[in-house]
């Protein structure tokens, strides 16, 4: 029996201790403080004071419910669009016969994402602006007489979110389709299934783990998006991330910001639970 192995087994916990301590101080403790602050009252300058109150949660589900609903709605729609675009794209990439073509087509999805998120989002301001490229093109072609308002709308936020998170959908589905054995489709056909049936009964269930992972990876950052609505949404496309940010400025309200953060975390945890649950059910069947 290895001495090092035994030593590590015995001392493993002490090896893990510094990291655990770090994460406890800079990750767990801050979240606990947010939770506590979210129940406190707002003092002068937006700071948290006693006594405890539930009013911030009341507001989060009262006047601000519309923004909460918009955030979840936009994130859901982003997930659906990413799935509809990303699934066939992942399929296309993984069914290329030559390895080089497969690598290039995959690389073309990944490469744009080596650029900073801020800059990728900013690029849409050029395209969608009142005097932007799309309006310029449509005007010069005579398709429209007046520029269309696209920037600072929910539409712009949706486009930005889909653009920002599409690879998160493509990559896990690609990994699933790569593992898929296409002889199963032949088998389904031999057994009398048509294309639609073969897809729904064979291809889709077997690539489901990738689909579920992709949906979680797109939905979660979309719900908590801050940069995209900030640069593209204006006041009409305000999401919960921006609302939280506002509470930490000059005329802010730290306890309200904390309560909104907790609500957002709850949404994220709920979607993670749904993900874990559906993965389990998927494995069971």
């Amino acid at each position, binding site marked *: *029996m*290895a001495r*090092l*192995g035994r030593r*590590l*087994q015995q001392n*493993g*916990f002490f*090896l*893990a201790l*510094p*990291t*655990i301590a*770090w*994460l406890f101080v*800079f*990750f767990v*403790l801050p979240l606990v*403080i*947010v939770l506590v602050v979210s129940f406190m009252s707002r003092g002068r300058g937006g700071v948290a004071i006693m006594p405890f109150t539930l009013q911030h949660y009341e507001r989060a589900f009262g006047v601000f419910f519309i923004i909460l609903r918009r955030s979840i709605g936009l994130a859901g729609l982003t997930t659906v669009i990413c799935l509809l*675009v990303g699934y066939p*794209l992942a*399929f*296309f990439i993984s069914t290329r016969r030559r390895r080089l073509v497969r690598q290039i*087509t995959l690389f073309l*999805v990944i490469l*744009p994402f*080596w*650029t*900073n*998120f*801020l*800059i*990728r989002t*900013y690029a849409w*301001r*050029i*395209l969608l*602006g009142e005097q*932007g*490229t799309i309006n*310029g*093109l449509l005007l*010069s072609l005579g398709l429209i007489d007046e520029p269309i308002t696209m920037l600072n709308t929910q539409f712009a936020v949706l486009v930005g979110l889909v*653009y920002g998170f*599409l690879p998160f959908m493509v990559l896990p589905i690609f990994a699933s389709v790569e593992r898929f054995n296409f002889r199963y489709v032949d088998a389904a056909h031999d057994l009398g299934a*048509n294309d639609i049936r073969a897809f729904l009964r064979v291809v889709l269930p077997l690539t489901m783990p990738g689909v579920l992972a992709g949906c979680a990876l797109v939905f*979660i*950052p979309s719900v*908590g998006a801050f*940069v995209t609505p900030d*640069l593209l949404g204006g006041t009409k496309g305000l999401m919960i*991330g921006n609302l939280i940010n506002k509470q*930490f400025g000059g005329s802010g309200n*730290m306890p309200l910001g*904390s309560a909104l*953060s907790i609500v957002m*975390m709850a949404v*994220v945890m709920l979607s*993670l639970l749904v993900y874990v649950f559906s993965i389990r059910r998927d494995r069971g069947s």
Partner: protein
Amino acid sequence: MLINEGAMRRNRTVRRLGQVGLWLNPLVAYFFLWAPILVLVLFSFNSSRSVASFTGFTLKWYGNILNNVMGAESAFSTELMLNAFRNSLFVGSIATAISTVLGTMIALAMARGKFPGKGLIDGLLFLPVVIPEITQAISLAIFFKVVFDWFALISGERVFPGFHTIIAAHVTFNISYVAIVARARLADMNPRLEEAANDLGANPWRAFWRVTFPLILPGVISGALLAFTLSLDDFVITFFTSGVGTTTLPVFVYGLLKLTVTPEVNAVSTIMMVLSTLLIGISLAIQGRSASRV
């Protein structure tokens, strides 16, 4: 088979539609992925200030950056931008060093150690990866404020956020990524190699540095490069934990992008895009080489 004729025709239509769709989808998707980037680059060379139509080629916006002209924004200076870049490198290096050590340690402990509560630690490592950046940013901002307020109350001295808060925040989100990458490497490694080293008379310390560490080194390097990239790229968490005079490059760029669309901003963005693509390309090449060597 007269009865099936309708069904077969329908099947053929479905198949044809599917084939058209499978060809159309990648075209549209790749156009969608690449058009914004190409438009950004194109208009950084446009001779007029407009982004509505391309009127001719020029390099003057790149010249303007060097001469500290930023269109509508006068506060821009190349000096400030380079300073922000230096700040980014500083924060990135220190955060990477700390998180690589901490991440590797916990990866080793999780792979080889036997102690209770491993599931809980797994959750603790997994959470920073999945919770939205804004929540982590806000919680750290509040945490530092509370701690500094207390400190001022006790010692009478005021501490302000700065490099130390940014670095602490970056280490926190980097640990998980380093640990994930290093653990993947450890999982591939045969623990008997350590046993063999022991049987040959190496003490545990020597066995670790001569056998285990060289074998997991590619994983540690990949983890460190990933941490460095994430650190250089991070905006949201840095934005909420930085203080006066500790602006990193993404925070600086955000200040520019928030204003208006100007050809100078397009030029700066193009330069940053080329640089970050090169940087990631190089780091992936290093990873590829160090992975293939073992």
